[in-house]
């Protein structure tokens, strides 16, 4: 279904995001034990399988917690999930174990930083991280630019010196290079969404996006979002809707949200692509935990972002778009 012809009887306005958030949190709560890492996670050296879900749960629930009103059910659920994740990490012991297993890897710090940003701290791990981040090796570890932004964000949250210049790294990403928007594909799309999440501190600081990147997104984000929705790429579409809510003045996206909400299963699950699964087994969890986390995150950000004036059809900032009328070859 295209975003342009979403059903007219679907909930409209913020009701759509509230429903998506409520249902996604319900599914995440029902499956919270599946985020728990195995006892031998540090020995298995498979962080993407064993601990990455826990780190993502913490990062996105911390964001939902910030963006929901205290006293509300969604705020309470996000807080419970964050606390459950912290408990599942042995209140931080996991990160020290991971760091000792792979002492020069950055992912333990990246995951831990989500907890630290939400006030859950482990003194032993932080002492280890301070020592590791002071080495020349840490500074010259080879990283893709978007990943370097993640490490920079973690360093900032722990009060460590940045390992390199954040602005230079941001400029070196796919999005920072203001790429031709028709070159968008999944890989570059995820690079772009994470550029925005890291630079804006997961939506907390939209003003940190440089004006040229804001202008680029104002012009082309709708095209990427609609295309992903039409092909039912719910995971990337959800991230793009979250990016929209990270903009200082998000453009209207009621039709996009209606199309996105239609992809969510009745129990709140969101599949990475295509129809929501009916199965609730481990395989379904592995496939769907990320898009469902993203759904909660995007919905919470959108509910509390300040929309641009929907009466203004000229959404992109004209000053940021530099028309090409005089620029023919």
């Amino acid at each position, binding site marked *: 279904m295209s975003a342009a012809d979403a059903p007219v009887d679907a909930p409209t306005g913020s009701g759509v995001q509230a429903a998506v958030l409520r249902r996604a949190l319900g599914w995440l709560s029902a499956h919270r034990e599946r985020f728990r890492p195995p006892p031998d996670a540090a020995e298995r050296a498979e962080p993407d399988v064993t601990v990455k879900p826990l780190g993502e749960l913490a990062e996105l629930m911390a964001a939902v917690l910030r963006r929901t009103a205290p006293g509300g059910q969604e705020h309470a659920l996000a807080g419970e999930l964050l606390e459950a994740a912290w408990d599942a990490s042995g209140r931080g012991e996991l990160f020290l174990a991971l760091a000792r297993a792979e002492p020069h890897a950055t992912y333990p710090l990246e995951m831990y930083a989500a907890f630290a940003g939400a006030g859950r701290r482990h003194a032993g791990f932080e002492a280890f991280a301070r020592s590791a981040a002071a080495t020349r090796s840490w500074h010259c570890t080879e990283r893709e630019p978007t990943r370097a932004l993640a490490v920079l964000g973690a360093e900032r949250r722990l009060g460590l010196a940045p390992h390199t210049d954040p602005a230079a790294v941001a400029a070196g990403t796919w999005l920072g290079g203001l790429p031709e928007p028709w070159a968008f594909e999944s890989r570059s799309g995820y690079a772009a969404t994470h550029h925005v999440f890291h630079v804006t501190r997961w939506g907390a600081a939209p003003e940190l996006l440089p004006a040229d990147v804001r202008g680029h997104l104002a012009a*082309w984000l709708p095209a*990427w979002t609609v295309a992903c929705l039409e092909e039912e790429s719910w995971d990337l579409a959800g991230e793009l809707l979250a990016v929209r809510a990270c903009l200082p003045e998000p453009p209207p996206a009621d039709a996009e949200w209606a199309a996105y909400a239609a992809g969510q299963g009745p129990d709140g699950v969101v599949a990475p692509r295509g129809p929501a699964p009916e199965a609730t087994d481990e395989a379904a969890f592995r496939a769907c935990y990320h898009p469902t986390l993203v759904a909660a995150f995007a919905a919470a950000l959108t509910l509390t972002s300040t929309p641009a004036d929907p009466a203004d059809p000229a959404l992109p900032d004209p000053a940021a*778009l530099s028309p090409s009328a005089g620029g023919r070859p």
Partner: protein
Amino acid sequence: MAEATSPASGLPDAVQNTASVIASALAGGGNHLSAPDLAGSVALSAHDPLLVACVRVLGADALAPALLYGVAAAPADVALAETARDAYPPPPEATAASAWSHWGLAEALRTLTGRGVRETQPDADWVAGEPWPRLAHRMAQLAPLAVPGVESALATGAAKRPVDLGRGFVRAVRRRDWLQAAGLGRWLALVPGVPTTLGLDAGLDFVHHMGAAADARVALHVRAAQLMRVTAPVRRAPA
């Protein structure tokens, strides 16, 4: 055998052949058709109903080399286009695509020959109001109207939505709908105010590489757009 030669069944192939000839003429830098006229170039009789139908399908693009290079059309091509215009008048209930295609052919003829009166333009109010994905779909179907010198309410409306047309181009590439992308590329080559960040020139090249081999209409639209990027008068953005 009868089927193979009837206009309906042979029409897609004839359109491809004719579009290919026109695309080559547009790419040829002033060397127009390979023969003195369109019929000779596609090895059909100018009276062949298949060729007449084919010209009606291509609309104003049947005359694109003359329109875009600003030269006189071959008299035989003018006669052929007039035949096509008169053979397929749009019925009152015609779709906007059909009505505009007819109008474009008639207006192209008037522009090139100076003969005839300007026909009433079909409705173009939708250009202002359609959500951009629908706008892109509809405008791409009317890409033959994206020609400098053929002023229309479509072109006036399109000039007010350069970013939306650009979004349509991005979406069409993502969908690998090369014909829609190429058609939108023509409008983007015509209208002012297209963001430089779109990278239109590289995008047109990309669409040609990806889609022209399988569909000569993609080649025609891209070549027309590229020619417009070089030759079209630069317009000022509306205030």
